[in-house]
């Protein structure tokens, strides 16, 4: 920083600094706040108890996504606690005058899908949500991070958050991604290398030719998983791809204000010569599709690889962790990943529930059948994604292949609704976490891209999607 050159993160931070307090912490202004039913009830209750008003209700966009059925919206949610949590959000947004997208509205969807879709997420903004995958919105050059419920309440009351400045990290993906690979493979490849704590304390700016070539959907997938690398935020500098995505979105600026905004957004890039505390460069031209084998997103191998052997672990602690993970996953060291069979395929989530993801999966499913004994779900990330997919005929491709075509929501990513793995079931999932029990008690999750998930659905085992694409 001695040369005055600043990173994108430096610029976003400095533009939102309200005050530096005497204890050295900074008060950061929050432009946009996404709210869902799971992490907000105690925040609204906190405001009520303290008699505090909501400072800027119009800075919030709220929706229900975690608890809702993906099969039926016309009858009440069967499980009482889920029903009550959904009802509590509706009550709270009415009482506090918060903008809300109703459950039966076409715009309803996963909070991290609808924010960008509505143009609520904008470059240069600070975006928070009581959800760790808020990092998704960094794909627009917004400083976006997940917060806890006490912080949700804090933002509601003050429109600010006390923050500590993070370190700057840059990850450059250089080269050209081979056909059949996308943002998910980049994310998994990175986490496999730096680990789930590799980005702790840092904001990661994603750069390099392979990132510039990614669509907004691909960039969102990549930034979404920055949190799985331990970084609260991921960032991609906005460019023409970003502006083209946002133009005409309902909540994006229009007319002269749009031109003014774009001119400002074009300054949101890291200056030449700006210093990063850490830099990682990954060459991607030879990358193979990635798949996880264990119970942490860092347990990654290429689909061409095998289940790793704990005997080759670098330390005793790592050996023990690997052994535990393999026991939970019921996998034997040395098994080729392509020999591992699946019971369930889940295509959806805030990581991979967007239109491009569904196109990628449909391209593999087209003209094929879901393998016998495999249950395969496609859950669009929002009502608008669902309508777009249906306009393109993707729903028919999935249905004819034997996939279930569901209503939008978080669904089996974490199974807060009734979409869950049964004990012992193994999934190929386009979601973001393969923790023990994440998709259901005793469930075994393998994280993959939408194309790889569809490939697993039609073959019944993990399969290199490139082979299926070549065969078409």
């Amino acid at each position: 920083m001695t040369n005055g050159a600043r990173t994108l993160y430096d610029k976003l931070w400095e533009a939102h600094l309200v005050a530096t307090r005497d204890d050295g912490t900074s008060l950061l202004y929050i432009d946009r706040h996404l709210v869902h039913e799971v992490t907000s009830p105690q925040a609204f209750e906190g405001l009520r108890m303290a008699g505090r008003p909501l400072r800027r209700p119009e800075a919030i966009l709220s929706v229900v996504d975690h608890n809702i059925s993906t099969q039926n919206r016309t009858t009440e949610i069967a499980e009482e606690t889920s029903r009550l949590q959904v009802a509590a959000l509706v009550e709270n947004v009415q009482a506090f005058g918060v903008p809300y997208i109703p459950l039966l509205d076409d715009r309803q969807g996963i909070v991290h899908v609808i924010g960008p879709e509505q143009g609520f997420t904008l470059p240069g903004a600070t975006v928070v949500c009581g959800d760790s995958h808020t990092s998704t919105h960094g794909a627009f050059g917004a400083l976006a991070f997940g917060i806890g419920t006490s912080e949700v309440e804090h933002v509601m009351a003050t429109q600010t958050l006390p923050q500590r400045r993070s370190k700057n990290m840059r990850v450059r993906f250089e080269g050209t991604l081979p056909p059949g690979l996308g943002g998910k493979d980049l994310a998994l490849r990175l986490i496999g290398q730096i680990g789930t704590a590799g980005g702790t304390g840092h904001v990661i700016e994603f750069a390099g030719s392979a990132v510039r070539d990614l669509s907004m959907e691909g960039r969102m997938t990549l930034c979404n998983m920055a949190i799985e690398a331990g970084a609260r935020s991921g960032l991609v500098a906005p460019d023409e791809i970003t502006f083209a995505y946002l133009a005409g979105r309902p909540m994006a600026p229009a007319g002269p204000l749009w031109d003014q905004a774009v001119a400002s957004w074009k300054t949101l890039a890291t200056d030449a010569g700006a210093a990063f505390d850490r830099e990682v460069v990954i060459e991607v031209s030879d990358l193979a599709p990635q798949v996880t084998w264990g119970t942490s997103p860092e347990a990654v191998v290429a689909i061409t690889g095998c289940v790793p052997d704990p005997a080759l672990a670098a330390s005793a602690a790592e050996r023990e962790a690997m052994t535990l993970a393999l026991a939970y996953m019921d996998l034997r060291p040395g098994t080729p990943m392509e020999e591992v069979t699946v019971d369930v395929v889940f295509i959806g989530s805030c990581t991979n529930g967007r239109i491009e993801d569904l196109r990628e999966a449909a391209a593999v499913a087209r003209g094929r059948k879901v393998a016998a004994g495999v249950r395969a779900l496609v859950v669009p990330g929002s009502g608008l994604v669902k309508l777009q997919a249906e306009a393109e005929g993707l729903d028919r491709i999935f249905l004819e292949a034997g996939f279930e075509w569901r209503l939008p929501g978080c669904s089996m990513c974490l199974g807060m609704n009734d979409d869950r793995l049964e004990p012992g079931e193994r999934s190929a999932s386009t979601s973001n976490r393969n923790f023990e029990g994440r998709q259901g008690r005793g469930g075994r999750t393998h994280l993959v891209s939408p194309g790889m998930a569809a490939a697993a659905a039609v073959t019944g085992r993990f399969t290199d999607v490139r082979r299926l694409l070549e065969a078409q």
Partner: protein
Amino acid sequence: MKPFTTLTGTAAPLLRANVDTDLIIPKQFLKTLVRTGLGRHLFSEIRYDAEGRELPEFILNQPAFRGAEVLLSGPNFGCGSSREHAPWALLDFGIRCVIAPSFAEIFFNNCFANGILPLALPMAAIQQLAEAKGPVTVDLPEQTVSAAGLCFRFELEPARKNTLVQGLDEIARSLACLPAIEAYEANRTQATPWL
């Protein structure tokens, strides 16, 4: 918020890396509308079998550790989701201090909002604490952790320490900056009217 100064209590070792928030409090317990009552669900899936019976080998089910107030664990504790239900569950069980070599950021932040001290020590020190006889004493003002024959100093950012020792209301602190917030908003309306 209840201030945190010193704490003497039993330390339960759960010495594994990457204890994630799904493990601390699984999804089915996130449907609550209140902050309390989650203690009985803490670590549910490794604490109880599928029928809800206690698994006797799990550390917090063992008689010596049922009343633990300190948890000892491995690196990257609290990784995963932003759910504040994780610190709420720990607190409701009675744990007010987690000692681990490192913490995931959102979990770390959430602890301070709930009067829990996430305390970083090297793994070797944590191993020694796990093997020590008798209770562990955490002295936040002095920034030390001690047990029979052991004493370790730990680092903590002064502002973080102050929040816990004084039990500060962070929202009230930010509202005290209201003039600065209003000035920022006035300027922002000029500079970035689309926001």
